[in-house]
């Protein structure tokens, strides 16, 4: 009796292991657990940062209709004081924008056009990021820095993970990792030592045949000096208040714009 039970358990576990191999083994074989662990360690560390200042020197490919890619340059300067204050400046070939968030309001300001718009904001940076994205279609710059290590990061989407070895960024020793997830290949350089910060990020959009790239080179200041005024918008002379269009109002307008501009 006992023997039979043992035997059936053995058969069961053997068949289970076969099943496990056939279903998940090929996937797991492409994931280096050490690479995922390094990513998680970085995310956990990022979550511990109360205030930080980070500068991203970045490039983004635009794809022309003929499939040619054109690289544009940009710089992001971001100052965050968790949980509810943030300031970001976006300077690119195409625009200049300032974001202000003081825990109560969010303001977007275009210095060159001298327009600004202010809307009531939720209580935390995390909620603000979601609201801007979902309601207004505004991407928070460097959003990954706020997502890694949180429950809404994309770790579950990763299908491939490798450790690409040591690499130096701006003279700092880093370890380079490469990940794949649906539609996206990405590489990250994580600083070695006590401060596992992301120092460089390269994204390749793989569901576009032109495979356009985006890169960020990150410089960190973990002890920034600032005062509360940094997070509140004070309209300069001549600045004009305008509205932010909600996403739900885009589609309608867009179709009309299309017909308008194609004539």
């Amino acid at each position: 009796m006992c023997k039979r039970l043992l035997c059936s358990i053995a058969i069961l576990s053997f068949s289970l292991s076969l099943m496990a191999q056939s279903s998940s083994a090929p996937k797991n074989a492409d994931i280096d657990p050490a690479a995922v662990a390094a990513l998680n360690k970085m995310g956990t560390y990022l979550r511990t940062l109360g205030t930080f200042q980070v500068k991203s020197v970045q490039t983004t490919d635009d794809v022309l209709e003929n499939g040619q890619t054109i690289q544009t340059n940009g710089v992001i300067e971001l100052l965050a004081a968790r949980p509810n204050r943030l300031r970001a400046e976006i300077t690119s070939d195409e625009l200049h924008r300032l974001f202000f968030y003081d825990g109560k309001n969010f303001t977007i300001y275009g210095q060159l056009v001298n327009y600004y718009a202010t809307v009531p904001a939720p209580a935390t940076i995390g909620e603000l990021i979601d609201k801007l994205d979902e309601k207004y279609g505004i991407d928070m710059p460097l959003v990954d820095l706020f997502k890694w290590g949180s429950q809404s990061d994309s770790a579950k989407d990763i299908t491939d993970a490798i450790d690409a070895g040591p690499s130096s960024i701006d003279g700092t020793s880093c370890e380079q990792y490469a990940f794949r997830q649906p539609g996206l290949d990405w590489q990250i350089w994580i600083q070695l030592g006590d401060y596992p910060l992301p120092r460089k990020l390269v994204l390749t959009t793989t569901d576009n045949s032109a495979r356009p790239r985006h890169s960020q080179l990150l410089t960190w200041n973990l002890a920034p000096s600032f005062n509360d005024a940094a997070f509140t918008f004070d309209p300069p002379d001549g600045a004009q208040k305008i509205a932010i269009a909600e996403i739900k109002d885009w589609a309608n307008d867009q179709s009309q714009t299309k017909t308008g501009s194609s004539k």
Partner: protein
Amino acid sequence: MNRSIQKLLSITLVLLLSCASMFAQRGGGGTRTSVNGNANRNTNVNSNKNVNANINHNVNANVNRNVNVNVHNDVYVHGGYYGGGCCYHNNTAAVVAATAIVTAAVIGSRVNTLPPACSVVIVNGFTYQQCGSTWYQPQFVGTSTTYLVVAAPR
């Protein structure tokens, strides 16, 4: 006769140029700029919207660049509009852009640049641009600025 031929030629020219301009437009968008960004969220699955917005945004960039150079003066007069980028010194594009503006002045439509000779009018604290009989409300769409054609406010 000569005149009508001229007219035909100029129309053909404009058509040709607008074709050329379309080829030069940025059609892509679609470059992911974050690992954990929109793609995670359901909103972005409705990301048809986002993707379209990006495409428009990119087109905007191009139109802005062209118009900046040519319509600089007008553009500066009303509100210091400066679309970013710079400088395709290309008169032809202004013709095309201007055509687009004229045909787009339907209430509810959006344009990326204003026609010349507009004046700023503030109504209820919000800025409007009155250009002849057409009223525009500047708005942020995502991080881009656009002008929504509206009925005369107040």
